[in-house]
């Protein structure tokens, strides 16, 4: 069943004008509107994610991946478009209170930049606890044991739980973000560049952990990466973005083996 139905997601940075959408995109090889100088970070991005499915979004730097991720995680407002989550309607249209509720209880996000995802002056455990507290947990003992359980699941050393997150390695911080993202058993998890900045060996272990959790919990997932191997490992289906637009979409294996779009071919050839 479709869990998330995103339709026409658009994000324009700047004033915007009537020419913005018609003068940007892959065919113009630009995302900045020549009329008004606004940046069309993404436009007309539509896709569905089914229960338990992992959708990958790939594309070069600046192609609009994070913009889509932030809209889905309700961290940024869309300029246009809808995102319908089963049982919750169009979550982009919800008022502040509803948005917060949905974000706290039904969504999880792993941010590209650790500072957006964690408060480094809090303990690692406190960062995960925040998500539980936001969802109304008020029993300290229950919170502690849930955080401990999440640390075990994401393979963060439990004895580091009460150390400030600042003292964690990059890999640990990423795992804490994953622990936080899945803390309230959300219906949808969004990962933005889950491995960027990590050593290759650490990358593989973080991805393995996430893949195991994703299968166990059968959670709908959107994973954004400029790294095709990440998407190849995790995603069932993939979208290829360029200059804010989707240029190709399909099953991961098909897109990897038989890319239709010239841009996708270059993207794939460049890593093989």
């Amino acid at each position: 069943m479709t869990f998330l139905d995103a339709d026409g997601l658009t994000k324009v940075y700047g004033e915007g004008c009537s020419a913005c959408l018609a003068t940007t995109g892959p065919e113009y090889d630009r995302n900045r509107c020549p009329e008004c100088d606004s940046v069309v970070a993404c436009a007309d991005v539509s896709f569905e994610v089914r229960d338990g499915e992992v959708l990958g979004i790939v594309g070069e730097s600046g192609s609009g991946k994070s913009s889509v991720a932030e809209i889905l995680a309700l961290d940024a407002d869309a300029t246009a478009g809808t995102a319908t989550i089963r049982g919750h309607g169009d979550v982009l249209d919800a008022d502040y209170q509803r948005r917060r509720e949905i974000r706290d209880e039904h969504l999880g996000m792993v941010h590209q930049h650790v500072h957006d995802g964690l408060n480094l002056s809090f303990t690692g455990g406190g960062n995960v606890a925040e998500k539980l507290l936001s969802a109304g947990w008020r029993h300290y003992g229950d919170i502690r044991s849930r955080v401990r359980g999440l640390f075990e699941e994401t393979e963060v050393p439990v004895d580091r739980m009460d150390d400030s997150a600042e003292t964690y390695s990059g890999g640990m911080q990423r795992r804490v973000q994953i622990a936080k993202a899945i803390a309230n058993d959300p219906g949808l998890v969004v990962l933005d560049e889950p491995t960027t900045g990590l050593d290759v060996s650490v990358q593989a272990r973080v991805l393995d952990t996430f893949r195991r959790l994703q299968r166990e919990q059968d959670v709908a997932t959107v994973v954004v990466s400029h790294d095709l191997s990440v998407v190849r490992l995790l995603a069932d289906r993939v979208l290829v973005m360029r200059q804010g637009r989707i240029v190709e979409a399909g099953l991961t294996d098909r897109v990897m083996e038989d890319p239709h779009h010239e841009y996708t071919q270059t993207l794939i050839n460049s890593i093989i």
Partner: protein
Amino acid sequence: MTDAEPESLEELHDPSSEGLEGYNYAYLDEHTKREVRRATLKAISIPGHQVPYASRAMPLARGWGTGGIQASLSLLGPDDVFKVIDQGSDASVNAANIRRLAETTADIETTTDTTAASVIQTRHRIPEEVLTDDQILVLQVPVTDALRRVDGSDDRNRTRHAHADYSKMWVALYESVVQWGEVDIGARYPVMVEGRYLMDPSPIPRWDVPKLHDADNLFVFAAGREARIYAIPPHTDVEPLAFEDRSFRVEHFDEEACDACGSTDTFLTEVEGEDGERRFACNDTSFCEKRQRNSDCAKDDHLERSDIAWGPGTGIDPNGFVGDGGEDI
């Protein structure tokens, strides 16, 4: 009085020339009083919500109760009896200054007896004796927002209040329990008012916090520097923020009793005597004096009812709060 120039220093200082002469009643002009009353009424109708008002310059330095005195002066009328305490004491210079200003400009009676006052202005304490529905307690407030502990931005905090988003405060409590085994907040313990607004109860000790809950009297909190008024009307639900399994605790004084009156059910402060000995004494000095005269005087002696919840131990409980390691509320 005539308009003639004063002819001597004595005349200039003539005590009979003090009082209403040259001042509006209760010092503030009527417009200011209306403004403060309007803010106070609004604060009463939205318990725990901070209401801005145009705080005036007062003949006191800001930070010395200028908010409290504006709230008090806008409430006082000729029939009122006014009491002022500073950290439990009627005798401090600051309390005396505020009392004199009200006395000379509002032509009211003053008292040190909590039970005789109709309006009590206080800094850092709620009296030991139970307040009634005829009384108003005006608390001086240095920091208006409980959220400032976790975020210095008033803008962001206002948004949080608007949406009752207090998770940041909860994380701070969590971190405090992780680090100290308990919530490490002494004075200014954050409370939830009617399950809606997080409120800073001003720097009262935790000992006084339970008195805010379901009280008979009105509490008015007034900040001069930050120009905000908030209130807890009678019989409002006020709950200190705490985890279900880490309940809020008041201070405890183990085996100590007041050196002057022998009380074990009052908020004690340590004082050093002339001999250099440390002793414990009641912080509420006017109640301590009553206890010295009559050691059986309960905190609700002046009332017909005696089942009133008012902080730790309303009457004199032989098992008291002595050495019980703090009381779960």
